[in-house]
């Protein structure tokens, strides 16, 4: 069982829930403010109507200010149930005419500003520890010898306003909570719905035969195509590995069965020989055959090792010269044993390439090894030259391994780098075995392998690699 890093659904729900909660809180805050304003607006109208009705009954009779508070005025205010009412009538010269003396005073500046704008002046203040909303109306009495300003201030406690605002906010809250719940439900379902293609992929994979490595056929949304592509690429690699393993096993079986059968036959013949001379000659043949078989097994294993690398190249920045020097140093004892001169000429100095160092070393080892083993027959000179030089294509370098042997027949030059073909192995005593895989590795690194015979004989194996800039 894989360890899971939590459910996608829960993650989505948590994220979306958090967004909804924050959004909801903001909306609620705004709604509460709005509700407060709306409640004030509604009840301000009531208050203004009550005050205006009262103001109507203001008159001057025989030079006396006369005020007959209409029943309708305070009755209007009873519409906001349970709210206290205070009022007062003040004149410029006589002060308090009637009503409550000690109610909060309006700010004269704000009052003037509102009057200039042609609006009644509203303000909110505390009276006897309770929040009140006040209106102040001004009127200039100009009648038969009287000219003075009077102010009617009327106030109402805020119970009804608060209740209305609370009611509106509460209703909004119910709506918001409902939306949050719906939103979460939606995310929950949507997450399940969007994950369905992945479940289909899962089903397809589960229902497959173990050997079926065909690309997935399930249609997936664009977001999941990369995921499916990755799976398909991975399966492709598995498929190639599997193909190669099959080919390898078939080839190995074929390659080993023949020499072993021949060994067996020679050994049987040898057992019947009485002539010591013939027997020795047969034994010698058996030894050579065994050596050859041994060498072939080594090649097969080396090939298996290399072949494995093709799909698991881990490129890194490497100094080409270092790799070459190190690899040649490893092979130096072999060259010495065979009495072959091993040279390295670097014509361009330090060059960096992006490649898998292990694979590159293996490739070079293979090429040099081939040159040492097969390039010495009928050689013009016992020499293997490794050179590093700039390629014709700018930004590329050529790593060349050259021997001075008999080279390869023209018809083989193209073939050796091909994938295993039937009988291909036999043709060159295995000399071409490594080349096929070398070509594959180099190809995997983005480079190419070229083979050609030298003018004066010998084989040139040229690796073309891109320089890292």
């Amino acid at each position: 069982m894989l360890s899971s890093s939590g459910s996608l659904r829960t993650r989505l729900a948590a994220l979306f829930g958090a967004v909804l909660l924050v959004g909801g809180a903001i909306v609620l805050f705004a709604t509460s403010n709005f509700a407060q304003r709306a409640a004030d607006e509604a009840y301000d109208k009531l208050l203004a109507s009550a005050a205006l009705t009262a103001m109507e009954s203001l008159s001057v009779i025989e030079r006396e200010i006369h005020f007959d508070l209409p029943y309708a005025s305070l009755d209007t205010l009873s519409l906001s149930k349970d709210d206290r009412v205070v009022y007062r009538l003040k004149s410029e010269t006589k002060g308090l005419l009637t009503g409550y003396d000690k109610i909060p005073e309006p700010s004269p500046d704000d009052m003037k500003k509102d009057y200039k704008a042609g609006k009644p002046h509203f303000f909110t203040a505390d009276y006897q520890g309770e929040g009140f909303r006040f209106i102040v109306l001004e009127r200039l009495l100009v009648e038969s010898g009287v000219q003075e300003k009077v102010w009617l201030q009327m106030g109402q406690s805020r119970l009804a306003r608060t209740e209305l605002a609370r009611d509106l906010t509460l209703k909004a809250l119910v709506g918001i909570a409902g939306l949050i719940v719906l939103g979460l439900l939606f995310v929950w379902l949507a997450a399940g719905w969007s994950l369905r293609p992945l479940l289909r992929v899962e089903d397809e994979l589960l229902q497959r035969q173990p050997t079926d490595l065909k690309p997935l056929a399930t249609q997936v949304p664009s977001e999941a195509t990369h995921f499916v592509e990755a799976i398909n690429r991975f399966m492709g690699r598995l498929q190639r590995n599997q193909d190669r393993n099959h080919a390898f096993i078939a080839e190995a079986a074929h390659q080993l069965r023949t020499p072993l059968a021949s060994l067996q036959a020679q050994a049987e013949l040898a057992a019947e020989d009485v002539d010591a001379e013939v027997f020795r000659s047969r034994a010698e043949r058996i030894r050579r055959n065994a050596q050859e078989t041994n060498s072939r097994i080594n090649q097969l294993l080396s090939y298996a090792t290399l072949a494995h690398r093709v799909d698991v190249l881990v490129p890194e920045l490497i100094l080409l010269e270092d790799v070459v020097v190190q690899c040649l140093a490893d092979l130096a004892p072999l060259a010495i044993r065979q009495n072959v001169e091993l040279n390295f000429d670097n014509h361009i100095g330090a060059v960096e390439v992006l490649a898998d160092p292990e694979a590159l070393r293996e490739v070079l080892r293979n090429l040099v090894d081939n040159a040492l083993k097969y390039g010495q027959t009928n050689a013009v000179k016992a020499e293997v030259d490794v050179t590093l030089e700039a390629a014709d294509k700018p930004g590329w370098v050529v790593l060349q391994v050259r021997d001075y042997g008999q080279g390869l027949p023209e018809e083989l030059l193209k073939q050796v780098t091909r994938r295993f073909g039937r009988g291909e192995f036999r043709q060159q005593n295995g000399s071409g075995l490594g080349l096929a895989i070398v070509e594959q590795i180099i190809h995997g690194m983005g480079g190419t392998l070229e083979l050609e015979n030298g003018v004066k004989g010998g084989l040139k194996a040229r690796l073309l690699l891109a320089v890292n800039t």
Partner: protein
Amino acid sequence: MISFCSKRLITSKISEAIKPLVLCIGLLTNLFYLPASAGNYPAPAIETEKLQILSSTDESVMKSLLTDYQRIYPHVSVEYIDRNTVPLFNKFIEDYKKGSSSDIIISSAMDLQIKLVNDGYAATHSTENIGWVPEWAQWRKQAFGFTYEPGVIVYNTKLLAPENVPQSRFELIEKLRDQSDYFMGRVGTYDIESSGFGYLLASQDAQQASTWGRLTENLSAVKVKLYDSTSGMLKAIQEGELLLSYNVLGSYAYTAIEESEQLGMILPSDYTLVMSRVGFVSKRARNAKAGHQFLDYLLSERGQQLLATEARLYPIHPAVSGEATYSGLQQAAQNRGPLKLIKLGPALLTYQDKLKKGNFLKEWQEVIR
């Protein structure tokens, strides 16, 4: 105390023709006697608490409720201070400003009560058993009306011929105008200057209808006699001093009529004002808990039942039945005319405005005197 005990022997004979509007019975006179008094009701058990009630309702009317209350709360001693509405209002404010007041204040002057509540003197009364109280009978959960009493015309059945009994204000005006000699000096009403309740009814009349001006003029023409209590008026009618009296408190009249054959009562058919006795718990009560308890008791079914059967104060509880109840009055008024309910609310402050009150009283004085 004047006793009319002999009259109690006269049994109730309600004239079928005008039943239930005119009820004639003998008279219980202790209702008529209204001193400014304080009654003490020591706790039946060991006293642990005191309750002080400041009320405009006659102590005699409330006696049975007080003792019943003490049956539930036997450790509470009750002091019942009885004042007319205006002195009550003044005493309360005076006490309050000194720092502490009576625990519960009961008055039939609804406007004065509302003024006290509006001006912040009342404590909020929030208990579970007030859910049934109708909107009109409560304000701010502080002022509670617990009765439903009509303002009526009471007349002397022996002295006033049936054809002279006015059924409405229009008829009253007409009769006073047409037979001013006959009614001269023999009509009574509240002195609205000294009685807060009288002022409330008069101001409602002035606000409700256009008849008020003509009515006062005609009352003035027959040299109306002014009283500061319903009991005074009932007594004067009973004694034959008055033929009729306008704006009499129906609940008291009802009790009196049940006891006296000489008294009759009219619910004016143009409209009948209905008022409520209002109680609130003082914010500076010495024993607020007991105040709330008593208010709860007044609004409880048990208290309301006693208000109907003993105090005859027309309780408002829908479960209480009988003639002197909310439903009884509704029924009685059914084929007469509208009942104009005086609702609790800030509109009642209108006639308590200094200028308004001054003008209203000035006009009254100019007409009546």
